[in-house]
C-alpha cells in the first residue's frame, strides 16, 4: 500500500498548490503595498493628486476611471449580450444559423486584447474624435468613452455565454404552458424565461464586469493615460489597470512602486469578490462554466 500513500501525498501537493497560490498572491501584494498603506492610509483612495516627483499618491482619478469605463461598457453591452443569448438559445436554437453565429461570437472572445487595442486605436479613436468635434470638445479621440466602447465589444461574449446556458435550462413545459394560454413569444420571454433565468443572466453580467475592470491592454491604448481626474467621459483618463501598465517599469522610488502594487491589490480584491459572487450564483443554478 506504499503506492497508495505516495499517490495521496502527490495529489495533496496539487491541492496545496491551488490553496497556496491565491493566498500567496494576496500576501505578496499586501506586504509589498505596506509602505504605501502606512504612509497614505485611507487617503490613498480619496486623494486626487498623483505626483511621482513629489511622492504624492492618490488613486481617486483611476478608481473613478475604472468605475466609469466598466459601468459604461456594461450598460452598452447588456442589450447586445441578452440579444445574442436569446438569438442562439431561444429564437434560433439548434439551427445551422445559430451554430455559425455562436462560432463567430466565440471568435470575438478569442481575439487577444492587444489586438482590440490596436483596432480601437486606428478605427474607433477617429470616430470618437469626430463626435468630440461635434460636441466642441478638444478632439483627442482617446478618452474614457473610447475605452468603454472597445471594452463593451470585448465583454459581450462573456455575458452572453452564461446567459445562453441558463436560457437553455428553462424547462419546455413552462414555455409551452405559456403558449397554451395564448401568450406571444415576447410575453413568454418576458414573463417566463427572464424570471427563470434572471440570476444566471446576472451572473454572466457580473463575470463580464470583472473582465472589464481588469482589462489592461485594450484600455491602455485608447484611454489617453492622463493622471488628471476626467471632467467628463470624453476626456482622457486612466484606469487602475492602465496606470499600472504605464508606470510600473518606470517607477522610481519605493513609494511609487508600492503605490502601484497597492493598486494591484485593490484590483485583485475587487475582481476576486465579483468572480466569487458570480461563481456562487452559477453553482446554485447547478451547471458548470
Amino acid at each position: 500500500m506504499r503506492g497508495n500513500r505516495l499517490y495521496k501525498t502527490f495529489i495533496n501537493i496539487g491541492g496545496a498548490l491551488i490553496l497556496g497560490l491565491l493566498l500567496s498572491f494576496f500576501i505578496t501584494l499586501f506586504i509589498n503595498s505596506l509602505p504605501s498603506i502606512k504612509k497614505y492610509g485611507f487617503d490613498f483612495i480619496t486623494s486626487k493628486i498623483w505626483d511621482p516627483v513629489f511622492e504624492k499618491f492618490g488613486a481617486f482619478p483611476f478608481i473613478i476611471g475604472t468605475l466609469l469605463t466598466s459601468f459604461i461598457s456594461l450598460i452598452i453591452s447588456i442589450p447586445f449580450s441578452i440579444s445574442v443569448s436569446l438569438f442562439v438559445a431561444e429564437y434560433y436554437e439548434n439551427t445551422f444559423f445559430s451554430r455559425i453565429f455562436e462560432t463567430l461570437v466565440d471568435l470575438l472572445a478569442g481575439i487577444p486584447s492587444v489586438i482590440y487595442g490596436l483596432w480601437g486605436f486606428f478605427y474607433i479613436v477617429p470616430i470618437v474624435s469626430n463626435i468630440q468635434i461635434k460636441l466642441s470638445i478638444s478632439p483627442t479621440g482617446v478618452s474614457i468613452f473610447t475605452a468603454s466602447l472597445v471594452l463593451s465589444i470585448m465583454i459581450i461574449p462573456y455575458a452572453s455565454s452564461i446567459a445562453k446556458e441558463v436560457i437553455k435550462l428553462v424547462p419546455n413545459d413552462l414555455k409551452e404552458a405559456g403558449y397554451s394560454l395564448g401568450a406571444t413569444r415576447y410575453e413568454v420571454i418576458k414573463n417566463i424565461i427572464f424570471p427563470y433565468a434572471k440570476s444566471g443572466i446576472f451572473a454572466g453580467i457580473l463575470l463580464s464586469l470583472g473582465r472589464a475592470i481588469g482589462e489592461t491592454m485594450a484600455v491602455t491604448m485608447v484611454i489617453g493615460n492622463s493622471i488628471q481626474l476626467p471632467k467628463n467621459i470624453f476626456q482622457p483618463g486612466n484606469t487602475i489597470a492602465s496606470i499600472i501598465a504605464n508606470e510600473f517599469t518606470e517607477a522610481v522610488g519605493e513609494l511609487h512602486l508600492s503605490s502601484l502594487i497597492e493598486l494591484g491589490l485593490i484590483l485583485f480584491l475587487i475582481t476576486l469578490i465579483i468572480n466569487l459572487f458570480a461563481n456562487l450564483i452559477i453553482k446554485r443554478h447547478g451547471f458548470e462554466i
Partner: protein
Amino acid sequence: MKILKDRLFKFMVIFFALLILLPLFSIIFMIFKNGFSVINLEFLTTLPKPPGETGGGVLNGIVGTLLLVFFASLIAIPLGLIAGIFLYEYREKKIGEVLTTFVDISQGIPSIVVGIISYLWIVKRMGHFSLISGSFALSLIFLPIVAKSTKETLKMIPVYIIEASLSLGVSYPRTILKVVLPSSIGGILSGILLGISRISGETAPLLFTAFGNPFLNFNILKPVSSLPHLIFVYAISPYDNWRKYAWGCSLILVIFVSLMSFLNKLLLKKWKIKF
C-alpha cells in the same frame, strides 16, 4: 398590438445580435487587409531594424512567443494535471468544492496582477527582466485552465471502468495512471490547447517580466520579445512602417490562435468521451 409588440421584440433581438458582427468583421477584415501587405519572407525571418529605417522583421517576437509559451507549458501542464487530479479525487468533499471555486475565481484574476506577482517573485530578486519570469507569469494564468479541464474530463469517466480495473487487482494509483488518464486524454489536451491560445495573446503580464528584446534570445535568464508585446510597442510608435508591422504581428497571432481552437474542435470530435 400584442402581435406588433412580439414582432418588434424579435426584430430588436435580431438587430442587436447581428450588429455585433459589425465590429467582428471590421477587426478581422482590418487584420487581414493591413497584415497581408507587410507579411513576406523578410518579415518572418529577420530581426527588426533600428527605428526609422525600413525593412526588417519580427523574428524576435515569433521566437519569443514560442519560447514563452513553451516554458509556461512546462511549468503549468504537470502542476495543473496534479491539481486537477486532486480536485477530481476530492470532488465530493468540502475541500474539493472550495478549491474548485478557488480555481474558478483565479481564472478571473486580471493578467496585469499576475504580472506584478511574477515581477515581485522573480524579476525583483534577479534584478533584471527575463524570459523565465514572463513564462512564469503566463503559467499562473495557464495552470487553473489545465486543472479545471482535467477535473471536468476525469469526472466523465464512468465508475465501472475504475471498478473493473480494481477488480483485476490493479492498484488504485495505477488505475488512475493507466486507465483513467489515458481515456481522458482528449479532454485534457483540449484544455491545454485552450490555455495555449489564451496565453499566447497575453500582453499585460509580459510588460514588466519578459519586457522585450530587439535581438534573438534563447537564454531563459535574459529578456525576450513576443508578438503581443511587439503589437503594443509598434502600435503606439510614431513610425508609419512600425505601425504597419503591428498589423502583421496581429495577423500571425490571430492565425496561431485560430489554429489552436481549430485543433481543439477536431480533438473534441475525435476523442469525445463516450461509453
